[in-house]
């Protein structure tokens, strides 16, 4: 069986600006999280998958079809585009019905009603969208992506503008959609969200796919590579001097009673640190790994990619 989303060696540039650089991945059923800061190329990737632009190089396939050439793919694909765009003069129901109808749903009234109830927009369904809050607009945009019961869902920052309760509800909804055999690609610049929604994470930095795996796997990948550890000690100067002689230590910083160590090999540091301290009779008060969560991993990848690129 071919993957629902297939991106092969895709690059996209606008003039001199490279938005995506040699990105390849295949989706798997379930939720795939696309993690990246604003401007990393997430929306460009969604645009390519939705057929709104052509890749400068490489191929994009959705359900085996080229979305640029074949708009019929939208009958089986749901899209929540970036931003908050909606026709202000339509009601929520009109919007969802219109779009379901033009994606080949014959019973579009029923489908729209069901989708609106899924996203919790029943009472406000017949009000004009112009008066809606950001969160309500986002629910309409979610509903239109669900109404035609698509096999593939592309959601570009679907949690933007939602309050915490709505965020939680939508995280659950995305998980549920992914659990029902659909392929869901969901982007975010917030790591905690992606971690909670996705079975698999793709990390995009400056248009490049820099890491890929389960949320835990991505963490592990990063733990094996560079990380930052804060060591509180009674003699930070002496410890810093000793650590600097080690090959795996990239740099050290002294911060009051602590040494902040940047290392390329966290595992080796964990072994060496107690040995060094014992030999030099330095007291280790606390060892705090700073690079444990995806957030810092992501920040560091971003920083190194920035340093390497542009």
């Amino acid at each position, binding site marked *: 069986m071919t993957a629902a989303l297939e991106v092969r060696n895709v690059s996209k540039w606008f003039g001199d600006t490279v938005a995506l650089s040699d990105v390849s991945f295949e989706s798997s059923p379930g939720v795939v999280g696309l993690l990246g800061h604003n401007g990393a190329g997430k929306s460009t990737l969604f645009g390519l998958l*939705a057929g709104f632009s052509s890749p400068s190089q490489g191929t994009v396939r959705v359900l085996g079809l080229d979305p640029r050439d074949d708009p019929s793919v939208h009958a089986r694909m749901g899209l929540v585009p970036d931003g908050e765009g909606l026709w202000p003069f339509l009601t929520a129901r009109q919007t969802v019905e219109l779009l379901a109808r033009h994606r080949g749903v014959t019973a579009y009234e029923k489908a729209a009603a069901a989708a609106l109830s899924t996203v919790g927009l029943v009472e406000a369904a017949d009000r004009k969208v112009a008066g809606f809050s950001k969160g309500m607009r986002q629910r309409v945009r979610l509903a239109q992506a669900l109404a035609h019961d698509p096999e593939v869902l592309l959601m570009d920052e679907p949690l933007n503008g939602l309050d915490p309760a709505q965020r939680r509800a939508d995280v659950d909804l995305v998980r549920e959609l992914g659990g029902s055999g659909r392929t869901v690609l969901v982007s975010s610049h917030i790591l905690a969200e992606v971690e909670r929604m996705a079975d698999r994470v793709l990390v995009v930095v400056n248009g490049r796919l820099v890491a890929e795996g389960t949320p835990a796997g991505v963490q592990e990948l990063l733990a094996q590579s560079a990380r930052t550890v804060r060591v509180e000690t009674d003699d930070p100067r002496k410890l810093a001097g000793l650590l600097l002689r080690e090959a795996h230590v990239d740099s050290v910083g002294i911060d009051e009673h602590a040494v902040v160590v940047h290392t390329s090999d966290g595992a080796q540091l964990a072994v060496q640190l107690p040995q060094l301290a014992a030999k030099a009779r330095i007291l280790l008060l606390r060892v705090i790994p700073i690079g444990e969560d995806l957030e810092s991993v992501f920040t560091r990848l971003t920083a190194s990619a920035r340093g390497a690129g542009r």
Partner: protein
Amino acid sequence: MTLLELSLRSVVRGKRVIAVVLLPVLVGFVAVMLAVTAGASDRSDAYATLGGELLVLVLALVGLVLGVNAFGDERDEGTLGLLLATTVPRPRIVLTKYAAAFAVTWIACLPATLGCLWLATATDLSFGTAVWSLLLTSLLAAAAYSAVFVLLSLVLRRAILVGLAYLVLWEGLLAGATTAFRNLSVGAYASRVAAAPWDDPPFDVADVAVGVAAVVLVLVTVATVAAAAWRLPRAHV
């Protein structure tokens, strides 16, 4: 709600509709006033000015205001992505948007067209010729101008400014000043059709027969709409 209904509603919304309605109503009102109050020879001159020249300008301006929003609004409000995330063949999206802009432009200009028709009855020109030439002028000019501005709205972000510059500089100044450029102006062909009741048109028109002018306008419309239909699937959204 169909795509055509959506397109029609997005054309007629907002404050711009007031401006779009006021201008033709004003021209129509002036035409009727002149028909009622002016002397016989003045009425003929007035009809030449209003029915021949001003009507085409009104159609151009209304066509501009309504046409450039066909895709401009969708892009500004971020709804183009939703519109394109449908199975509707792209040329049909363009045709529907165009049909809405054209229909509303023609209807919005009816007060001016009908006012000029009233004025025509008060002149000694052939009424039958005045009727068909006015209706044909309004239909063909609305069709051609809408097509040009819908295409502009698809290609450019600042379609209204470029469209206005096109009307003032190309259609107005260049076509008004030189005969060579006159035959390259939509307005001059439309005026040629409007000048059908006169043996010798009392205002500047394209240097062709009435039938040829009508065919040129139809061809310009078809070619421009086709260009827009070709362009949408290739546009970057």
